[in-house]
């Protein structure tokens, strides 16, 4: 039987990141997936990034992951969302040509010398003595491993719904992983169901584009990954249209035929990504909802109508589409549908995304109750990285809520669980001012280098950038008097006093670009460095206020709670708290404090008990 230190199951966005990061760390990895040509497939919207999600892309990229570079390789439309607001919430987003994106992912997968792709359906896990030992494939093949990473997306027990129709499947025209789901249920893994949906795909040749407003790609040349030197594809327009009262009437009249309303689906879908049925039912007073018509690629006429995910019957989909301006003659290439699937209760996972009760089994991606490529990719990276660290005997990278959105997500998932598909939002990150998309590399690449998962090229680039930063910071630390500033042409009054150059940037008319022009600071050689440092300066006073909070957080993070910590023995905890803590099993006092319903008083009681335990042990 062949043995791999790590086997990754599922070649979606989570699976490829998990497999590649472990391979970059030098481990032999098998990536087992149903259809190797579907590696890198985008199930839904052909777009990468967005608010909160763009941060995740940049963080995955900081670890030398695939997502950012593949997004640039496929990008046919760039848009920086939220540009009117503070840069900590800017959301870089691209629309990608599906084919080019998938090809770029497969190319990266193929280029990893220690990564082997095995086509097949995993039908079961081999579990011995509470540990994962290997997997068995539907065709009978057996593989042995030290760790397995489950990245099966919407395929576990997947059922598709469209009007009155039902199909078993994980995505349209792709079979579900029914056998694996059955085994996991039998092994009493904590599974639950969620649902999501996708809109119909339209034939762009039947859309009356001339009547619609268009949105061009951003003209300035930013990219998703700082390693992508430039934009490689021709850029295309998106167009906008909206629903109207006729559309709403048609939908309302047919609500009972939607599986969401007929009771066929009762799993919870994402509140922030409602189906058009939901939008019209819940927010009936609105007279129209915006739709973005997004091209799916350069050499395909397919168009993705963003904003009208639906599982209404095909005839209703066609009827309401044709009531929309510009779509009067539209042909539906592939109707929309909803999918209901099994997910693992993420509270059964620890912060490395390993199952607490099943050593060697990691879970990442939509299987953990999230939604979105970026969320999936980031979890794949976290799981693959930790699994590889464990097997290679390396220290885990110190990811926490104060240094990454990735850790915020993993922490939220494993401590709160999910009641609807989890999507990244900047509001989830309490230390948002320090977690910007444009400083992801500065925050995380040092950790990535330490973990040994970045290429030589990225390491060199990073070091060059750090050198430039040091020179810049040195210059900004030098004190300058008001008269010096005036000599150089800046408006400065004497009452400002002598102060470091960095502080002078708070005054109107003084910024890094102008300072570089007069030679007070080095010119920008590293793209984006000046704006990153300028923002660091801008937010510094606010970031400083976090310090006390962070000290407490990190101190509490160090107070470990054993996996078998006897919560029921702690005096003063209510039954409900004992139950929640026992189910979630936080690994530290800080984590316990983030379990919903745990009060500071309860935390104090836990602390006392934890200390007693340590003393007794």
């Amino acid at each position, binding site marked *: 039987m062949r043995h791999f230190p790590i086997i990754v199951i599922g070649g979606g966005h989570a699976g490829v990141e998990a497999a590649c990061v472990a391979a970059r760390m030098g481990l032999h990895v098998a990536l087992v997936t149903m259809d190797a040509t579907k590696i890198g497939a985008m199930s839904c919207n052909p777009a990468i990034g967005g*608010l909160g999600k763009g941060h995740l892309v940049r963080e995955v990229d900081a670890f030398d992951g695939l997502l950012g570079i593949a997004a640039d390789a496929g990008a046919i439309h760039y848009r920086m969302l939220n540009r009117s*607001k503070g840069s900590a919430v800017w959301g870089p987003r691209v629309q990608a040509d599906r084919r080019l994106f998938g090809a770029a992912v497969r190319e990266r997968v193929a280029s990893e010398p220690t990564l082997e792709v095995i086509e097949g359906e995993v039908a079961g896990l081999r579990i011995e003595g509470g540990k994962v030992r290997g997997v068995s494939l539907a065709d009978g093949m057996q593989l042995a491993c030290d760790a397995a990473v489950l990245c099966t997306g919407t395929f576990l027990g997947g059922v598709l719904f469209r009007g009155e129709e039902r199909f078993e499947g994980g995505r349209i025209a792709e079979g579900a992983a029914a056998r694996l789901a059955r085994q996991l249920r039998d092994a009493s893994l904590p599974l639950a169901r969620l649902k999501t949906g996708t809109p119909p795909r339209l034939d762009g040749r039947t859309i009356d584009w001339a009547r619609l407003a268009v949105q061009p790609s951003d003209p300035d040349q930013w990219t998703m990954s700082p390693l992508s030197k430039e934009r490689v594809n021709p850029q295309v327009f998106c167009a906008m249209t909206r629903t109207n009262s006729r559309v709403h009437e048609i939908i309302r009249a047919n609500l009972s035929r939607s599986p969401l309303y007929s009771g066929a689906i009762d799993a919870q879908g994402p509140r*922030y990504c409602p189906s058009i049925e939901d939008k019209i039912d819940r927010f009936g007073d609105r007279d129209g909802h915006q739709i*973005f018509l997004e091209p799916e690629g350069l050499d395909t006429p397919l168009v993705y109508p963003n904003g009208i995910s639906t599982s209404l019957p095909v005839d209703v989909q066609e009827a309401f589409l044709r009531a929309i301006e510009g779509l009067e003659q539209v042909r539906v290439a592939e109707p929309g549908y909803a999918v209901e699937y099994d997910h693992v209760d993420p509270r059964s996972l620890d912060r490395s995304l390993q199952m607490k009760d099943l050593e060697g089994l990691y879970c990442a991606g939509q299987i953990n109750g999230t939604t979105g490529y970026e969320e999936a990719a980031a979890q794949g990276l976290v799981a693959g990285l930790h699994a590889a660290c464990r097997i290679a005997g390396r220290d885990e990278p110190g990811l926490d809520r104060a240094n990454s959105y990735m850790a915020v997500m993993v922490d939220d998932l494993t401590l709160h669980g999910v009641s609807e598909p989890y999507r990244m*939002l900047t509001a989830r990150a309490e230390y948002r001012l320090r977690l910007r998309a444009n400083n992801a590399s500065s925050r995380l690449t040092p950790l990535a280098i330490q973990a040994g998962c970045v290429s030589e090229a990225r390491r060199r680039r990073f070091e060059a950038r750090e050198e430039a930063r040091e020179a810049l910071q040195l210059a900004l630390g030098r004190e300058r008097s008001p008269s010096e500033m005036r000599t150089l042409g800046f408006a400065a009054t004497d009452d400002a006093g002598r102060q470091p150059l960095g502080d002078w940037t708070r005054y109107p008319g003084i910024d890094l670009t102008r300072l570089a022009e007069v030679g007070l600071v080095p010119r920008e050689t590293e793209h984006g460095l000046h704006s990153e440092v300028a923002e660091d300066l801008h937010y510094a006073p606010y970031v400083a*206020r976090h310090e006390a909070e962070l000290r407490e957080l990190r101190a509490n993070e160090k107070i470990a709670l054993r996996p078998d910590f006897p919560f029921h023995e702690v005096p003063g905890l209510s*039954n409900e708290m004992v139950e929640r803590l026992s189910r979630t099993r936080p690994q530290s006092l800080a984590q316990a404090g983030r379990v919903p319903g745990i009060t500071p*008083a309860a935390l104090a009681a836990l602390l006392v008990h934890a200390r007693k335990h340590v003393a007794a042990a």
Partner: protein
Amino acid sequence: MAIIRISGPGSGRALNVLAGRLPNSRQASLRQIRDPQAGWLDEALVLWFPGPSSATGEDCAEIHCHGGRAVIRAIENSLAGLGLRQAEPGEFTRRAFLNGRMDLLEAEALGDMLSAETELQRAVLASSAKGHASNEVAHWREAVLSASAAVEQELDFSDDDQDGIAPTPGWCSDARRVAEEMAAWLAVPPAERLREGLRVVLAGPPNSGKSSLFNAILDEAAAIVSPIAGTTRDAIERPVAIGGVPFLLVDTAGLRDEGADEIERIGISRAGQELARADVVLWLGPEGEGPSGVIEVASMMDAAVWAPKGEGSLAVSAVTGEGLPELMSRLSAVGRDRLPKPGQVAVSRRQKQRLETARLQLLEAAEVEDLLIAGEALRQARHALDAMLGTVGTEDMLDSLFGRFCIGK
């Protein structure tokens, strides 16, 4: 009559053993109390409150027995025999807090109220203990949550997503309004003042009659028997209640009468310190020569040579007691004015600090242009309010966000 309260998971069993069987929950029943070994102890009313909807959040029981010491002791012994122990001071309150039956503000106020010695202390703290203060804070927290939700909506959903949804107006003015309401609380003296009492310092040159007046007032006022440890620092301080208002009377005379030069000097400087710390100064010296803001008192009315002082002053004789009732009622009026009043919320100094943080952050949020900083300031304000109540949560903010808006694609 005596009431023995039992809390904790063993309550049901204990009541079962002593009273034969559990009564219906929350209904008083008359039972014979028997110890398994010692036999019949008493006839008593017993009550059974299953958790979590009990005072402490745990299973609770009450035995209303006859008040004789022997009876109480016997029942306590029997309970101890069942593995129960006496509650520590404040333990019921602490457990109620731990189990989420009470928040921090309520718990603090209850603790203070239970040790209240004057009517004013009790009246002010009772409303906080009953949760009125917490309700108000919860109200503010609600307002801050909505403001946060409005800001986060702006931040977390791009202009494209928000199509047609006007940004929630008015969160800025809401934040300012809440900050103003907080300022009103902050203007109330801290709750500790109720416990410590208003410092009334008797001052004046030597032999102006301070000590005799001090003693006369002490005779007239109700002594507070068990001063909270640490409030009375030396022999010249006395906690008293005048007209239901707590005071701490300070006689600076004691400091002057020590004799030796060295001690005299220290004494003088201490008298100076006392004057600086005083809330009310009764000035017995020549009119107008005391520090500003004093109550002028023309003492020793009974003396051969005596002159009244000007308008608003008091005249008093420690010997005959003449003028003393007027002095007392003046003090109690001043006290009622300067201490938290019933109906006002008095919070501890620590809580006031948190409140002040919240207030400043709200003002900053309403002021700044960068929404991100507004979001951060609102988060800090929420954090401070959470700390006041002893609760925490970003999840609440998200719920409030999603409950109100149709967001996303």
